[in-house]
Each structure stands twice: as C-alpha cells, then as structure tokens.
C-alpha cells in the first residue's frame, strides 16, 4: 500500500530540479525581488553627470530634469546616500 502511494506521489509531482530548501529559497527570491512598479525610477533616462546630460540634451534636442541636492554625498542612481 505504502509503495503504491509513494509511486502515485512520484508520478503526480512535477520533477523539481532543486531540493526543497533550494526551492524555498527561489520562491522567496521571487516574492522579494522588486517588480517594475517598485523600480519606476529606472524608467527614466539617467545621465551620469550634468555635463553629460547637457551634452546629450543639446545633441538630441531634449530637455533636462536636474535634481539638485544640498548635501556632500549621494547617488540618486543607486539610491545610496
């Protein structure tokens, strides 16, 4: 009986490449990885610095949005400041 049940389970479950712990870790990765809505600032066309932004704006005839931060350090592109 037990053997039949085990065989039935084996057939009904899809073959997982990873063991249970790794599967759990991958599920958690999917749950925690930020989605596009959370990463909306990466929809913007960022330039590395003001000189590059103005050079591109002039060449491509586009406006510039400049964010000015009164602080010694900060990196808007990564978010670390």
């Amino acid at each position: 009986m037990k053997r039949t049940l085990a065989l039935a389970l084996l057939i009904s479950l899809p073959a997982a490449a990873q063991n249970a712990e790794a599967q759990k870790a991958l599920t958690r990765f999917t749950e925690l990885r930020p989605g596009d809505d959370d990463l909306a600032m990466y929809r913007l066309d960022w330039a590395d610095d003001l000189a590059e932004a103005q050079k591109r704006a002039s060449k491509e005839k586009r406006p510039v949005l400049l964010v000015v931060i009164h602080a010694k350090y900060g990196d808007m592109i990564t978010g670390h400041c």
Partner: protein
Amino acid sequence: MLKEFVVVSWHGHRDDKDIPEVVQEVWAAKFKPGPGGGQQSNVDACVLDAQGKLVRKWDAMTPRKSGGRPEPLTGGALAGHWRDNLAEARKTLGLGEPGEPRPVKLPGLPEGTDSAIRVFTRLNDKGMPAYYAPVVEVVPMETEDWALLAVPAKPAKLEASAFLPWLSKMFPGGVMERTDQVTKKVYDVTGAKGELLLEPAGVKGELKFALLHGNVTLTDSGGGEFSYSGELSVVVEYRGGKVAGLKGTFEGRYPRTSPQGGREFDITGVFERVVPAAR
C-alpha cells in the same frame, strides 16, 4: 511625464568650488533672504531646455504649513506637487501630452566587466516609505570571485567575509545616524561574519544546483556596537561545472537610533547574477 527628458542629479554645498551655473541660479533664488526662508528642503528640481536654459524650478518637497509648523509634503500631495510643476514645464517647452513611460532599465554591467551581482536592498520603515524604495547596486565579479562558489561535491563551510564585496552593498540609503559627522560620508560596511554552508541542492540534466545559507552579521566603519544580522539563502546554478546563475535573499533586522530611542526594522536584500544581454 519624463519620457522625453534626460534626467540627472547633482549634489554639493554652497561653499563648494565650481558650482554649475544653473545650480548657482537655483540656489540664488532658494537662499534669498525674505519670507519663507528656512522652510525649504535640501532638494530642488529644475527643468532646462535643450540649450541649458532654466525653464522652471521648484523645491522638491515644499514644506506646507500645518498649524503654523512647516512640514514636508508626503504621499499624494508630494506627487501632485511634482506633477503640477512638470505639467507647467512641459507646457512651456511645448511638449504636448506625455507618452507611455519607458521600460525599466536597471543598472547593468560596468564597462569592461563580464559578470556581476546585482543587489537590491529595502528597509521596511513604515514611517518613512522612501526607505522601502529599493536601493540597487551592481558589484562586478571576477573569475576568482565565482571560484569561491565552485560546485560542491559535499557540504562545505565558508566564511561570510569571503562574500563581503556584494554583502557590503546591502545597507539602506539615507540612514543619517550611520554617517561620519565630520565628513558627512556614509559609513562603509566593512565586516561580514558568520559560518555559511554551501551544499549540493539538486541536479537537472546538465544543470547542478547548490545552496549557500546561514546567518550573517554585518558591521560598518563607524564602529561602536552597531551591527545587523539576518539569514542568507542563495541558490547557485552550474552548467558545465561553472556558475551559470545565482538568485538569493537576505532577511534580517536593522537597528536605527534617534533622539527618541532605538528601533529595529526589517531589512531585505535580493541578489541576482548579471551577465551581458544576449545579442
């Protein structure tokens, strides 16, 4: 509303040398003595035309008066403040109705690198939703860095410090109490402690998998008693004996201090391998 724009940030102090002309123009108005002085945030936004001429400027978080006490705008009011100013700038520039936004394009591989680990970090501070916006860092990886994660034949113990280059990028942005009070520079994460286990975690065809897991404690260059800990779980995928993929998480608690006392918040890190996009 920003599809047509090149976007950039600049930071500095009023006593810095070589402040760009446009910043001087913005700050000349911002710091002009008069009514409203002292009620501004430290962030301004401005729109320039293609020739670099200032079209519109605004305080990024204009304080509003609530019972006489100025407070920064938040949530929908803050978004509305930006929308209104951008709409005016668009009108001045003759841009018409905004089109569909661009697709998300995350920071990719730095020039001259073949692979990297991308790190997303979030601090779940309900009182400060900005901390929940993910910080995204990309850490270049060399062959010897991947060799630390070589496919294990049996469970192997590894020190968390071996993975400091990418673990060290997992700290929240804007945490002022972890900033050097003299230089104003954010402390670097300089220590990773904990015994991790890298163990085989399955096979599928020519693919092999391993799981790297364990508790990690991180410390920074600010010293003192400060540290934060959490559980690291990383699945490594191998093809032909070489690392072909990596997906992982860190779930821990991050202590913050304020004049009102200390509190801990959930911190999450997410890690993924980055390789050149297929052509």
